[in-house]
């Protein structure tokens, strides 16, 4: 049986922990707000570019290496987005487990299956598990500064890998930010660019642009530049989503932790009160029986 003093110490330490989790929740909430704004801003940009590419491709039947899907991709690069820090619930584990599953299921099927990790956690997960996976690169410090410039650099590198033929398909695994309460692991094919679902249909049922559209320079050149930018935009968007999802996950996790601490404090206080009462009762009995004995 713990003494009253032990329990009081435990209550105090739980309170301290609760204070920390509450503060962390608050910080994440503020950061989430910013990250959310980021996503809202990047979505129209990314969307618009893809539509334009699809429209040009539909009207002009432009060929481009980034657009041509290989029927049977053999060399796959998986870009896995996690966070650098923990304490955010299932956020990192879901992703890492998914990537591990993908690796185990498919390693024999493809000629080559490589990983690029963004964030410390995926790297640590794979290292700890000794799967024999050597990532071709690790990118850290994402949450601190997810800037377009940095995304563009990563995108450039990926595009180079693709164009030089190291890989014929690049996929992105990340947590999509659904709402503050839920995130979803999704896999997205980054390269080659998939246009099948995006071409806009106009009122008159015609695909693409008006016929008399002036292009400057030639559509083939425009599309080249657009593809490049579209690609950076996609990487940036995925990074923003992942960061927002991380903050959301951490916020929820910390909120739960705060609640649990509350519950723990309540039950500890109950025990301590019971103990206190028990000791008072014992004392009273001792005094009474002492007085009784003196009388006799």
């Amino acid at each position, binding site marked *: 049986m713990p003494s009253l003093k032990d329990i009081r110490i435990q209550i105090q330490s739980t309170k301290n922990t609760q204070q920390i989790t509450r503060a962390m929740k608050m910080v994440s909430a503020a950061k989430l707000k910013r990250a959310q704004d980021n996503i809202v801003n990047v979505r129209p940009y990314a969307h618009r570019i893809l539509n334009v590419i699809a429209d040009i491709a539909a009207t002009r039947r432009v060929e481009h290496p980034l657009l041509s899907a290989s029927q049977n991709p053999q060399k796959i690069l998986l870009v896995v987005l996690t966070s650098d820090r923990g304490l955010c619930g299932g956020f990192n584990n879901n992703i890492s487990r998914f990537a591990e599953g993908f690796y185990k299921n498919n390693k024999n099927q493809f000629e080559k299956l490589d990983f690029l990790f963004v964030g410390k956690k995926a790297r640590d997960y794979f290292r700890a598990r000794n799967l024999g996976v050597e990532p071709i690169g690790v990118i850290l410090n994402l949450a601190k500064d997810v800037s377009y410039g940095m995304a563009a650099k990563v995108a450039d590198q990926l595009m180079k890998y693709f164009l030089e033929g190291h890989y014929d398909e690049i996929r992105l695994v990340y947590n999509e930010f659904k709402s503050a309460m839920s995130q979803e692991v999704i896999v997205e094919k980054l390269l080659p660019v998939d246009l099948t679902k995006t071409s806009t249909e106009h009122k008159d049922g015609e695909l693409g642009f008006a016929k008399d559209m002036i292009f400057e320079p030639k559509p083939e050149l425009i599309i080249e530049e657009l593809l490049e930018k579209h690609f950076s935009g996609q990487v*940036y968007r995925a990074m923003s989503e992942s960061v927002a999802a991380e903050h959301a996950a951490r916020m929820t996790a910390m909120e739960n932790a705060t609640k649990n601490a509350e519950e723990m404090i309540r039950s500890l206080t109950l025990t301590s009160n019971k103990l206190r009462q028990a000791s008072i009762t014992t004392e009273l009995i001792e005094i009474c029986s002492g007085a009784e004995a003196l009388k006799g």
Partner: protein
Amino acid sequence: MFLLTLVTPQKKLVTDLDIEEVFVPAYAGELNILPGHAPLMTTLQPGALRYRAKDSDRLRYVAISWGYCEVHPQGINILAETAEFPEEIDKERVARARKRAEELLVDGNLNLDEIEKFQRKYARTLVRAEVSEQSE
């Protein structure tokens, strides 16, 4: 009604603003676009974009780096990689970046790619410097 929308991946600068005219630094030189312009799609060079809102006689300047511009009968959509209003530009930083690019181009030991990179950088700083003069 001729509406201008200007967005970058990081922010929306202008959304659906009714405008009188726009000057864009297009691929083949500066274009002045007025309401009723033919449908057009062009890429943009680093440069100063200017627009005048309806019922205003003031031209607003925006420094943009790469972007593209789409003109349709209802208005203009511009997507730029970066875009800054004059008051957002840090003049000192621009001057520093420019000096550095200048020095490297003059006597740095650069390979061809780097030369190209710094030439672009230099061009951007020129644009920024020009636009930042336009703040009041």
